[in-house]
C-alpha cells in the first residue's frame, strides 16, 4: 500500500472525534488527500464497528479529549482487544506528560491541533511504512515509556 499510489486502493482512515465540526473538517481533509475516511462520534461507536467487522481501517485518527471514553481509553481498549492498527492521537494539549502517557499506551504518533494537511499525510506515511510499535505494557499504565 502506498499513500499516493494510484493503482492500490486508497488508505482507509477512521476518524474518532466527538466534535462534529472538527470531525467533518478532518474527513474532508483526508478525502482531499486521497484517503478513504470513515468517521465515528465516539470511541465506543468505533470499537463497536470494529467488533462487528464494519470497520477495517488501515490507520486511526483519534481525538484525545472526549467525554465518556477518552482517546487514551480507546487506545488502551484497542490494545486489550489485540487490534493492531496504527493510531495517531491529536489534541490541543502539548504537555510532555500527556504525550508520554499516549506513547506508553502504544500510539504511533501524537499531533497537536490544528493539523495541517502536509503534516497529516507525512505522519500517516510514516506510521504506515514503519512497523507498528507495540505498547510498553499490555496493561494500561500512566508511566512514561522507557523508549522515549
Amino acid at each position, binding site marked *: 500500500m502506498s499513500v499516493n499510489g494510484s493503482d492500490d486502493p486508497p488508505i482507509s482512515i477512521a476518524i474518532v472525534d*466527538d*466534535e*462534529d*465540526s*472538527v*470531525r*467533518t*473538517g*478532518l*474527513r*474532508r*481533509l483526508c*478525502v*482531499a*488527500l486521497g484517503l478513504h475516511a*470513515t*468517521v*465515528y*462520534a*465516539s470511541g465506543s*461507536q468505533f470499537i463497536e464497528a470494529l467488533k462487528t467487522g464494519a470497520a477495517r481501517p488501515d490507520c486511526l485518527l483519534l481525538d484525545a*479529549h*472526549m*467525554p*465518556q471514553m*477518552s482517546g487514551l481509553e480507546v487506545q488502551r481498549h484497542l490494545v486489550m482487544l489485540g487490534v493492531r492498527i496504527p493510531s495517531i492521537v491529536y489534541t*490541543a*494539549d502539548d504537555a510532555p506528560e500527556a504525550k508520554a502517557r499516549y506513547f506508553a499506551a502504544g500510539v504511533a504518533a501524537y499531533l497537536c*491541533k*490544528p*493539523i*495541517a*494537511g502536509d503534516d497529516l499525510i507525512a505522519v500517516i506515511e510514516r506510521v504506515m511504512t514503519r512497523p507498528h510499535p507495540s505498547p510498553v505494557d499490555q496493561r494500561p499504565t500512566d508511566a512514561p515509556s522507557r523508549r522515549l
Partner: protein
Amino acid sequence: MVLHAVARFGESWRRSNRSTSTISQRGAGPEADAGTFPLAPGLLLFVPVSLLGNLIGLVLRYPDIGSAVLFPPYAALTAALVVSPRRHWVWYILVGSATHFAMSLAHWSVSWVLVADVANVTRAVVAAVLLRRVFAGPPRLDDLRVLTGLVVSAAFIAPAVGATIGAANAVLHVGPTSYGRMWSAWFLSNSLTSLTILPAFLLGLANHARWRWPPMGRRRAAEALALVGALAATTAWAFVIPAAGFGPLTLHFYAPLPVLILTALRFGSGGASLALTAVTFAAILGADRGVGPFLEYEPDSNVLALQVFVVLTALPVLCIAAISTSRQRTVQLYHALLASAQDHIAILDRDGVVVEANDSWRRFVQRPDVLRLRKVDIGDNFVTAARIAATDGHDDAARVFAGVTSVLDGEQKRVEIEFDYYGGGAHERYALYIEPLARADGGAIVRRSDVTARHMARVEIEEQRRQLSHLARVSMLGQLSGALAHELNQPLAAIASNADAAHRLLARAPVDVVELEAIVTDIVAANHRAAQVIRRLRAMLNRGETRLQPLDTAELVEEVLDLAHAELITRRVTATAVVAPNLPHVLGDRVQLQQVLLNLVLNACEAMTSCIPPDRRLSLTATADAGGNIRFSVRDCGTGIPPTLIDRLFEPFVTTKPEGLGLGLSISRTIVAAHGGRLWAQNNTDRGATVHCLLPGAAVAQEQTTALGNGSAHRSPVAHV
C-alpha cells in the same frame, strides 16, 4: 434664717428625688418615705403659719355653730406631713395641737377643743397618707390625674372623716339635732381649704428649690403684676365694695372668674391656688364686713352659699391650671425634641402646607439650591412647591410630589425617597421620609435626613464587592484556562482542516463546487463559534457595571454548562441539565449569575475528584416555586460536605479544598444576596451534596422557555456523518 434653711432643704429634696426614683425602681413603691423636709426649718415655718391659721379660723366662723368658714391649720398640717419624713410627723401633730389648744381654750371648753383636735389631726393624717400615694414623689398638680387625686383625698375623704369626728361636739354640747348642720359646716370649710390654700402650700414647699429672687423674667413679672391688679380690682368690685342698688340676683361676683382662668392658664396650679385663696379671703372679709353678695339670707345660709361658690369656682379653675401645665410641659418636650433632632422635620396639614418645622429644616431652606421644593418654610405649601419643581423637569421633585400626594391621600403608609443635593458647591445625599400624621385632620410628617455618609459607604462597599467578585471571576477563569483554550481550539481546528481541504480541492479539476460551498459554510459557522467563546470570555473578564435584566433561565443554564464544557470532559464529569418547562425569567446580571453557577459546577466537579469516572455525575436543575422564584440546584455525587462545615461553608476562607482560598462561595453568596436571593447547601441522603440558589423571578410574562430536558449537557454526538 428660715429661707436659708429652706434653701438647704432644696438640696436634700433633690437628693431625695433621686433616691426616691431609685427606691421605686427597686419596687418599694408607695411604701417608701417620700418626705425629706428637715424638722427644724419645718417647725420654724409651721408654728407661725399654724398660729395665724388658727387665728383666721377663729375670726372667720359660722355665726351660730362656731365652725370656721375656712380652716388654714388643716392645710398647714397636711402640707407639713406630706413633705416630712414619717418620724417627724409626731412633732408637727404635737405642735399643731398645742397651737390649736392655745388659741381655742379661751373660747371653748377643754372637751370641745379636745374633740375638735382629734378631728383635725385625724383629717390631716388621712389626707397626708392619701396625698403621698397620689403624688408618689414631690407634690405636683400638673395633670388631671393628680388633681383628681387631690380633690378626692384632701377635699372629700379627709374632710368627711374630720367632719364625722368633729361634729360629735354638736351631740356633746349642743344637741343631736344639730349634727347634720355641723357636719356639713366642718366638711365644707375643710373642702374649701384644700382647694384654695392647700395647693399653694404644697406647691410652695415642693418648688422651694427654685426659689430665687427674682424668680421670673421682667415680662412675666409684669404679667403677674397685671393679673394681681386685675384680680384685686374685680375681687374688690365683686365682694368688698358695697353693691348698692343690685337686686337679689347679684351675678357680678363672677367678675374675678376670667382673671382666675387667665391666671390658671399663665401661671399654672400655683398661681391659680394663690389667686383662689385671695378671692376666698376677700369674699369672707366682705361678708364679715357686711358687704358683697353673700348677705341675702340667714347667716348660716350665706356662709354655705359662699363656700359652695368658692368650691365650684376652684374646681374648674384648678382643672384648667392642671391641663394648661400639662399641655405646656408637653409642648416644651415637643419643641425640645424637634430642636434636638438633626433631621430636618416639617409637619404638613392635609393640604400640604407646612404648619411646623424644626430649626434644622428652617436652616436648610436658607441654603442655596437649584430645586425650589427645598425652600419651603413654615406657611408655604410643600405639595405645590414639589409640583412646580416637577413641572420644571426635576425628577427628584416629581418623585417627592408623587410620594407626598400618596401619603396625604392615605394611599401609602410610608414613602422613602433618596435624592442628591447640589447647592453651594456641595454634593450631599438626603433621604426624605414621608409618613402620615396620625390624627383625624390628616396631614403628614416630612423628615429629611442627611445620608451622605451612609450613601458613600454603600457605594464604596458596592465597588469593593464588584472588584472582589471580578477578581474571583478572573481567578476562576484562570483555573479554566486549559479548558477554555481547548474550547477555542476546536473551531480553529475545524477551520484549519476545512481550509486545507478546500485549498487542495481547488487544485483539482473539475472543482467540486458543492463540497466547497459546504466547506465555506462550516468555516463561517466555526468562526462564529470561536467569536462566541471569545465574547463570553470577554464578558467574564470585564469589570463592568452590574446590569440587572430579565434573563432566560434555560439559556443561563446552557451558557454555564457551555463554559464548563471542556473542563467537565477533562475532569471526566457527566453533567445533566434539567430545566422545567415554561420557567419565568430570572432578574439578574448575566455575567454575575453565570459566575455563581459556574462556581457551583466547578465546586461539584472538585468534590467528585476521588470518585471513579462513571460515578462523577452532576446535575444542574432549574425549577420555579409558587412565588415565582427560580431555584437552581447543583447536585453532585461526591463525598458530601463535612457536618462541621455545612453551616460555615459560605463564610470567607472556609474551604474543603487543600489549595482553595475559600472565597468563591462567599463571593457567590454576596452576589446572590445582592440579587435578593439566597444560597445554601445540604448533603444528599444517598451521596454527595446539593447547593441551592434561589433567585427572584423577573416579573415579566412567561415566555417560551426551551427545556433542555434530560439530555446530556455536552453537544450531542452525531453518529456517522
